[in-house]
């Protein structure tokens, strides 16, 4: 005579996949991240809102007083900087999520536990980058509201900044995984900020036009992956477009096509032994 245990007599779920991807895995992991995020919302707000907003006001109002317009143009300095800070923030947020955040989940065996459910490594990668992208959108919205309120962004087309923010989030989320998947210790993971984040932030044309750089530095800047996103963000924020923007989009997509599979391979090697 067997014992009755209520939760054992439930109907089982069926696995539904599309092109080998199970949407439930992605939505469930995303939801898990969301609950973790809102549980510590006070700290999350500090990271997502306060830091970039303080930086933007500091640079826009502070440096903007010293440099009223970008030299050689009549563009007010805060209007020049604001679109770049939006995508700069969009770079950092998913990069943190997929480097430090992912590393902590690896160290706490959380991925091991999650993988006991019917999900795949690819779905883990997609879900984590998707959540990083979500946080980048929140960050984008907060900075944009401030910039519009100060009159630094005046064009409705700023809503299309979501396109470079999306591309940047996916690219730098994947780059974050390159570090978390190969890190022998936590100190290694912090390199992502030192060797990727800060140089990108400083040399992608957020704070000054490339024209002020010497020729050799300008050549290097052409290959800084954040630079095309800054160009796109600035175009959508000012509603001024150049033909070269299509190459900026293609460059970002090309980088994603290269980096995303690499991050998948490294994450799989890390989690499946």
């Amino acid at each position, binding site marked *: 005579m067997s014992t009755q245990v209520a939760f054992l007599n439930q109907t089982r779920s069926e696995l539904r996949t599309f092109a080998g991807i199970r949407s439930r895995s992605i939505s469930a992991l995303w939801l898990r991240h969301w609950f973790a995020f809102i*549980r510590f919302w006070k700290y999350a707000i500090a990271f997502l809102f306060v830091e970039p907003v303080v930086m933007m006001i500091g640079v826009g109002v502070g440096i903007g007083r010293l440099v009223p317009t970008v030299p050689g143009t009549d563009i007010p300095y805060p209007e020049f900087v604001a679109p770049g800070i939006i995508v700069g923030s969009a770079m950092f947020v998913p990069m943190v999520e997929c480097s430090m955040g992912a590393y902590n989940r690896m160290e706490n065996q*959380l991925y091991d536990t999650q993988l006991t459910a019917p999900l795949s490594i690819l779905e883990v990668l997609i879900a984590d980058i998707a959540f990083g992208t979500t946080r980048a959108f929140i960050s984008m919205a907060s900075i944009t509201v401030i910039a519009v309120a100060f009159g630094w962004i005046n064009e409705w087309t700023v809503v299309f900044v979501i396109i470079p923010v999306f591309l940047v989030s996916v690219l730098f989320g994947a780059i974050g995984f390159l570090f978390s998947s190969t890190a022998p210790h936590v100190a290694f993971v912090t390199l992502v900020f030192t060797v990727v984040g800060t140089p990108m932030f400083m040399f992608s044309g957020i704070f000054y036009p490339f024209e002020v750089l010497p020729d050799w530095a300008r050549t290097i800047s052409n290959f800084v992956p954040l630079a095309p996103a800054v160009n796109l963000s600035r175009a959508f924020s000012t509603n001024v477009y150049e033909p070269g923007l299509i190459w900026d989009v293609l460059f970002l997509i090309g980088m994603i096509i290269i980096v995303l599979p690499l991050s998948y391979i490294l994450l799989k090697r890390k989690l499946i032994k």
Partner: protein
Amino acid sequence: MVMKHSAIDNSHKNGHVVQVSGLVKLYDELRAVDGITFSVRRGETFGLLGPNGAGKTTTMRMLAGLSPATDGSVMVAGMDVAKSGRDVRNEIGVVTQHDGLDTTLVVHRNLEMHGYLAGLSYRDSIRRTKEVLGFFNLETRANASIHALSGGMKRRLAIARAMMSSPQLLVMDEPTTGLDPQSRNRVWEQLGALKEAGVTIIMSTHYMIEAETLCDRLAIMDHGNILDIGEPDEVVEHHVGAEVAILQLSENATTEERAALRRQLDAEGRDYSEVGPRFLVTAPKGTKPEVATLTGLAPMRVTYRPAHLEDVFLFLTGRELRDE
């Protein structure tokens, strides 16, 4: 001498939830699992015993589709784990060696999220969370932080999480390691109830009393091999007989007398082990160990006790310390 006579379990070909055949796992040069074969019947509780590094965890990870096998096959519920790992994990619950609890979420969210991840609707996941928390006596801690739970509660929560998808097969890696006796007993009660309800359980453990209490059958592993497999009583009877003779040397016993006793045991080809001042002498196949030829070699007191699984474990795997 290690016996491998029953390392291959051919007892049943049908009605098995799990069939492992010639399973091998290589990590570079290390053969972590070295061609093991066993099967587990529906409703059975099957134990994997072995010292650290024996290959238990690796075996269980391959069984759950969390680690690819180098060679051999694992069939779970008629599915090949190598080809259908996702489908297999949809059918089973897994408790990893580390709790792997989500410390950024409170207790009930840990369960809800796992249920939703496993495929339940969100509403069903919330409902089942309440049922599972009740079954594992954790309902009063539903809103607690993971850090606020005792070791026993965390372990029960880890098992509860694995039960969220109502699996008919539960795979557990050392479910009670590190728990105090009270917490261990609580886990045993709950595993016993799941077993009564028909859940098939595969578990690894270091605790012989746990294996004797819970397992219908068990396999003793070492160095990636199965050394013996069978029902606990059978295994004990086969290797160390019904009783163990304990030769307790007195404090006056000299080193030379101790060596003489050892020489005599070796000369007679006896199975024995030394534990401090005691020699434990066993006699296989149900006979009582005779010690008449030994008692004159050193001042000692002789007592007998029933043989148990730990005697077999030490007999088969030796006393050498292991590290993971």
